[in-house]
């Protein structure tokens, strides 16, 4: 795998591990992201590496931003190259996140029937396939807290809707291509809507306002409407207990 270093001005560069979407390439991205984050936590970002401001993982690359007043590209890039050359192993310390989801009714799952028709399944089989998918968060972006979660059961692969919706509700669970996502805000969207979670993907009252992080392992858990209403009520008040849903 040949790694490329792309200039993003004099305050950032992108470490590109490949030009395709694959778990192996994303694994390298997440490993470099984690190596730098761990070194920062341990206070071991020394020398030119101390000039790193933050790192931004995507499906196939890691953008490294730096302070040109405390380091230079010429000093920093070789240090990153050395980290990559040492061999990047994913730390294996992924969080296990369980997301409760209600798949019931036209209001929460307006596209469930269409998805069933397009994939030659019953609505319940679509839900089952979503529940048994082993998901992983590849990247967050486009809006704070919006996660692209890959690993959808291949029998559910569909292109985006030909007609995107102008408005869809917060916390809607949707699928498209090989991914699922959860909209953190009311927003436009072109994916297929198959459920809703009572959780808020972005809640500025929480100590960690963004619920998901790159690298998280994600599974969905089916809940009924009554449970949804109870949990959504608690989430609105900011009193929902997250500890059962996230295992470090």
């Amino acid at each position: 795998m040949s790694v490329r270093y792309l200039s993003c001005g004099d305050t950032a560069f992108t470490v590109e591990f490949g030009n395709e979407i694959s778990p192996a390439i994303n694994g390298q991205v997440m490993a470099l992201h984690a190596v730098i984050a761990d070194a920062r936590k341990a206070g071991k970002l020394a020398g030119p590496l101390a000039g790193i401001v933050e790192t931004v993982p995507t499906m196939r690359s890691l953008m490294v931003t730096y302070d040109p007043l405390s380091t230079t590209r010429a000093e920093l890039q070789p240090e990153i190259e050395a980290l990559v050359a040492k061999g990047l192993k994913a730390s294996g310390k992924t969080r296990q996140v369980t997301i409760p989801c209600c798949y019931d009714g036209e209001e929460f799952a307006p596209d469930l029937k269409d998805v069933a028709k397009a994939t030659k399944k019953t609505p319940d089989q679509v839900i089952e396939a979503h529940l048994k998918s082993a998901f992983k968060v590849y990247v967050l972006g486009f809006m704070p807290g919006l996660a692209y979660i890959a690993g959808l059961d291949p029998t559910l692969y569909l292109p985006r809707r030909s007609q995107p919706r102008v408005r869809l509700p917060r916390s809607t669970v949707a699928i498209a291509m090989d991914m699922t996502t959860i909209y953190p805000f009311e927003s436009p969207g072109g994916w297929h809507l198959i459920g809703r979670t009572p959780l808020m993907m972005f809640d500025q009252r929480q100590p960690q306002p963004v619920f998901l992080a790159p690298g998280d392992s994600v599974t969905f858990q089916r809940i009924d409407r009554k449970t949804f209403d109870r949990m959504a009520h608690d989430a609105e008040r900011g009193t929902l207990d997250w500890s059962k849903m996230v295992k470090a």
Partner: protein
Amino acid sequence: MTAALKVVRPGLFDTVQDFGRIGFMALGMPTAGAMDRIALSLANALVGNPLDTACIEIGVMGPDLLVEADSVRIALVGPLSPSLIDGPDAAPKPLESDRSHLLKRGQILKVGMIDGSSTAYLAIAGGLDLPVFMGSLSTYSRAGVGGFDGRKLAADDVLALKRDAAPAGDERKLGSPFDYGKGPVRIIWGPQEEYFSAKGRKTFVESEYTVSKEADRMGIRLDGPVIEHEKGADIISDGIGPGAIQVPGAGLPIVLLGDRQTVGGYSKIATVASVDLPRFGRLLPGQTVRFQPITVAEAETLRREQEQRLKNAIAGFQTARPPGGIDLAKLYEVNLIDGVVF
């Protein structure tokens, strides 16, 4: 009673900004932050604040603010038409930019219109007493976070201040206007320059582009000759650094600034050098710009030189009172408050 500035009349787009929300791009959180960090730094230095203290960033037209504190020291930095200070029992008098001023309870600061730039900054000694969100006070209005209630200022907003009264001391002023540089805006090729044909790259650096009306804190869309792609406009999304110049399928460049999204799927031909980002953040619709490629190392050197010039400008602040003379402006203010007329 807590000290505050009350918005009597809002401007067009006033938001609280500091150097930005750093360290959360991996969670999809844009950095936001001041469009012009030089002016923000100078405004803070004039009132004795740390340079990264949150200020009010003024877009196009400033607000009217009522002083609800015993006294407050402020500084406006940016090319403003005359601002006014309006007292309860005196005629309004002009208030100069690029220096600090002491205002008293009941006075109204009427910030002027911006002339020749898109932003100016109002610094307040001691700073604003607002909740810190993810390490910053910067407003990111698209998600409704940071600053004052996550949005631009509106009538009757009460901005709490950290200090009840301004500390004693002379007023300070900028020695001479800061030199933002002239000529083409310096850029660095990449990250996806290879997605453009040689002809497209030549068009980009040899043409004049005009700032369109679609210019805000997220980015500036430019009008001008179409830039030809070779490998197409779409990439697998990757990170977007400050000043990234993305070129969607229509071939017109968009320069991405503070409120830009963290990742994106359009090819980026080049990136504005950090030394020229404050200058770029000041551009107004209708103004023209040309681009000149430089190397990363050159850009880093230019940035360091600019930081040194900023330090020099701050070290070179003058006392607003002329040496050996009296500060007429201050005397006038005192009279205004005391109601004593000699």
